[in-house]
């Protein structure tokens, strides 16, 4: 499995250090800086979950993508609670593996570059500037705040309460449909620019910003 994974990652044009024990992983994490770690939970000399917790305690900050045969929700929750950033259940395709790796690397790069890019939309987290295909889009502060929140959690659902909290920071008393209004304005504002993103309403839960799939 390790050899095939190594080959997949090399094919994507990335460099990879591969080890086959928990002890070797601890030693590698301590001796070099990595952008991403892929970890198979089935290790010959210990539990992968313990290794993640140890690495986090030791100050290892790179994202960790767990690869596991254990498919239950409980196993996923345990891994994520112990410091993993994502969880991929076997079997998976090379495309899915690399897409997950890219997403994690992109988040890391965005964090470092202070820019979040989803679809054709780029958001500068320091200035709040929004650009689509190089063109700057003007936006009201409330819309920008909601967009910032949704972009930071792109591909995940943001509870409505969190958006309300973000809007309430502007001081004014917010109306019961303030969130709906803000999302509606955002949709209208971006409608003419083909941003390659969609604002999905998860009724009774919240909103989700996600990259448009062309075959949708």
């Amino acid at each position: 499995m390790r050899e095939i994974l190594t080959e997949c990652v090399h094919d994507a044009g990335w460099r990879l250090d591969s080890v086959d024990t928990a002890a070797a992983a601890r030693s590698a994490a301590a001796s070099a800086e990595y952008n991403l770690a892929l970890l198979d939970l089935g290790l010959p000399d210990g539990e992968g979950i313990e290794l993640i917790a140890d690495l986090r305690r030791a100050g290892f900050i790179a994202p960790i993508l767990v690869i596991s045969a254990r498919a239950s929700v409980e196993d996923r929750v345990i891994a994520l609670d112990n410091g993993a950033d994502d969880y991929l259940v076997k079997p998976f395709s090379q495309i899915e593996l690399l897409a997950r790796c890219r997403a994690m690397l992109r988040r890391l790069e965005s964090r470092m570059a202070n820019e979040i890019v989803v679809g054709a939309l780029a958001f500068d987290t320091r200035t709040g500037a929004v650009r689509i295909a190089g063109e700057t889009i003007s936006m009201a502060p409330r819309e920008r705040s909601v967009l910032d929140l949704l972009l930071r959690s792109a591909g995940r659902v943001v509870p409505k309460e969190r958006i309300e909290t973000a809007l309430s920071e502007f001081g004014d008393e917010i109306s019961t449909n303030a969130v709906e209004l803000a999302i509606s304005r955002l949709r209208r504002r971006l409608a003419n620019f083909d941003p390659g993103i969609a604002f999905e309403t998860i009724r009774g839960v919240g909103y989700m910003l996600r990259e448009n799939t062309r075959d949708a």
Partner: protein
Amino acid sequence: MPELRGRSATLSRIVAIRVLLFASLAMALQAASIFITHYFDDQQLGSMMVELEANGLFRGIIAQGDGIRYVLPEHMARYTRQDDAYVTRIRSSEGQIIYSDCNVICDEHLLPQQVNPPDHWSRLLHQGKPISVAGGQAFDVQGQRIFIELAIVNDHELVMWQVLERAFIDDLAVPMTLMLAFLLGGTLLSLRVALRPVERAAADAENVDPLNPADRLNLEGMPREIAELGDAVNRTLARVYDMMTGQRLFVAAIAHEVRTPLAMMKLELSKLDQPRARKVEAAIDDLAHLVGQLTALGRLECADRSGFSSLDLAALGRQTVADIAPWVYDRQASIAFVEHGPVSVIGNRPLIEDAIRNLIENAVKHTPKGVAIEVSVGPSESLTVSDDAGLLASTEQARPEPNDGVGMGLEIVRRIMALHRGRLEPAVRAGARTSMRLVFAERGAD
């Protein structure tokens, strides 16, 4: 348990019936013994007949001032002049006759009037049955001696049998009834006290978790014989624990041993740019899904209630919808959540989340694109996953038969609900929303 209650008798009932049975047998033997002792001893029987009759006649004596009056008791009506078979003479120590129905029999069989008789005397008039006897008994009335003498020449009113009946009552019925009451009461009380730890253990057994080695039947205070049975049950539970632990390891191992080579095959196949490779990839996905379902079933076989806690079902449903929404929208479906009121249930969070996910995944996988799914909670202890695929006439054929992957997925949900003492209520009708309702046991139903 209710079936068992209706079918089998309680130990107290069994013991009570047996005690009564053996007591009846003992009473029958005692009755036979009393009969033999009295019936074949004519002398004693005669004496007892005199005593019984004298006591009966004595009830007619009425003290009036210094004098004594006599009224023959109704049940002693045989002592009148019309009946020669029974004669009596009641007199004082001074020789005064108080009552008499004497005829020639008195002169023949009673003591002369000049003689002061002993306190009790009797004499058989002839041997054998029916008993003929003469005798008398002395009584004290207001400091005066009263002699009641009588003779039974022909016992046509069966005084002998009355004597025997009295003997049965005095020697058998009264002492045996008292003894039986104490014996039965004491036995039942002892049983109740002795069985209290057993009743407690039976109640505890309902909630014993075989996967918790510390959770076993409490044998303290049990009678030794029942404690041995309890000990055997505990040993069986320990074996069940070993089996279930082994099965857990087996399930984990199977998952790893099968999924890892599948992952390797899929990674290798993804490098091939051929339509056939995609078909094999799809087959691998199906196989992986099947392995997932089988391992989930295996995990459920050894699941227990030790991890149960109080859960906010609405919060759990909302969180699950939030977690799975990206996957749902990636497949061109949509999802919403509706809360009809706060609902709290006792359960295992990951398992309930698994059940909800299973239902949502089924709704997405087995309906056409664009299906709208709704997860609703309440108002009672229930959660419903419904979709609008059934409302679209052209999609009726899209709902799969229950013997494919959906069947196993629903079986997993059913088992999860059974573990929660709840149930799955499916409702699939053409032209209506398809709904799968998870109904939980009410709080406190345990």
